[in-house]
């Protein structure tokens, strides 16, 4: 158990092994480990990003669905409104037309009646004059007679 050359030998062995380790052992293991670490970190990153994307897409889909539903409801409502409006309009038009036609017919009838009355009046006056002529057989004053007849006609 005496101190001897082994001391120096061990020192040299130590130096050689450290050199070997530095050159041939440390780098490959270190690289492999760090590369794997990076790979795992990247993978986790990608996974979290993908899940975030998925969530976003789901949200978007939901929103789109909701929007389209709303739109459809709106369109339906509009159509309903429009059809009701059209029906109302048609009804109103028909009523107006009817009224107009009735009014037209009424005024025509009135006209007809008036015209008949006028004709009748003319006829009556002519007949009365004729009758009177016949009664008198001679006309004394044509002018006076005409005035008389007119007065009569007005009274009728």
């Amino acid at each position: 158990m005496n101190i001897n050359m082994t001391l120096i030998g061990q020192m040299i062995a130590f130096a050689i092994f450290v050199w070997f380790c530095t050159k041939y052992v440390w780098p490959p293991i270190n690289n492999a480990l760090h590369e794997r670490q990076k790979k795992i970190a990247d993978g986790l990153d990608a996974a979290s990003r993908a899940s975030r994307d998925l969530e976003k897409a789901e949200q978007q889909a939901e929103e789109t669905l909701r929007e389209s539903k709303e739109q459809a409801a709106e369109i339906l409502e509009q159509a309903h409104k429009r059809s009701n409006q059209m029906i109302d309009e048609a009804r109103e038009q028909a009523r107006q037309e009817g009224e107009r036609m009735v009014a037209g017919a009424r005024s025509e009838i009135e006209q007809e009646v008036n015209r008949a009355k006028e004709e009748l009046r003319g006829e009556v006056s002519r007949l009365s004059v004729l009758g009177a002529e016949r009664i008198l057989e001679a006309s004394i004053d044509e002018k006076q007679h005409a005035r008389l007849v007119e007065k009569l006609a007005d009274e009728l």
Partner: protein
Amino acid sequence: MAGNNQTPTEYIQHHLQNLTYGYHPENGWSIAHSTAEAQEMGFWAIHLDTMGWSVAMGVLFIWLFRMVGKAATTGVPGKLQSAIEMVFEFVEGTVRGAFHGRNTLIGPIALTLFVWIFLMNLLKLIPVDLAPQLFARLGVEYMKIVPTTDPNATLGMALGVFCLIIYYSIKVKGLGGFAKELSLTPFNHWLLIPFNLVMEVIGLLVKPLSLGLRLFGNMFAGEVIFILIALLPFWISWTLNVPWAIFHILVISLQAFIFTVLTVVYLNAAHEHH
């Protein structure tokens, strides 16, 4: 279990003796045949078992990690790759926690120290008699297979760490900065420079010494206990060495970890300006 022709003292001494090759004053360059002969060789001797097993463990570490690193995929890792990566990440995390500077060499140093020391310590869980008996049959007299129970090994690594501390201290702070740190802390006054210098140099030298001796002390003590337990009759020894071995699963990992963390902390201090 003690050999038939050995006293307990001889048995223990035999198990604590390294296989030493060196220059003996009488026999020349040879393998020591006894503890006394090994001691007579002095400094110019080398522990073949310590060197052999530590280098074997280091090569095992490099080979294993290199093989996994080369085949490493960035996709789903296999079981072996996962295990290696777990060790790697543990060391990397420790370095990141304790080292605040920017130096790409600290990671490999910590990984090498941790795995290497762990593997060397792991040899201790091999039964204490197995290797000596096996090698005795092959004609090798001594075989102490746990390199970290040899102070040469632990202090050698600690000295390596010490060199790194000195190197980075000078590299980061400059020679002047390092000298200033040694002479003007903790008391920033020119009159106290000698006092500071003594304190700081002692503090600096104690770092590798404590680093090496802590590991050695823990491992050596554990080894001695294993050897002592092995002296008991074989039908009772398992009641002690099984719990002790289980406890040592903790100790060997913990000591490897402590050595690594302290190295990183010391190197961090070398990178920091005061």
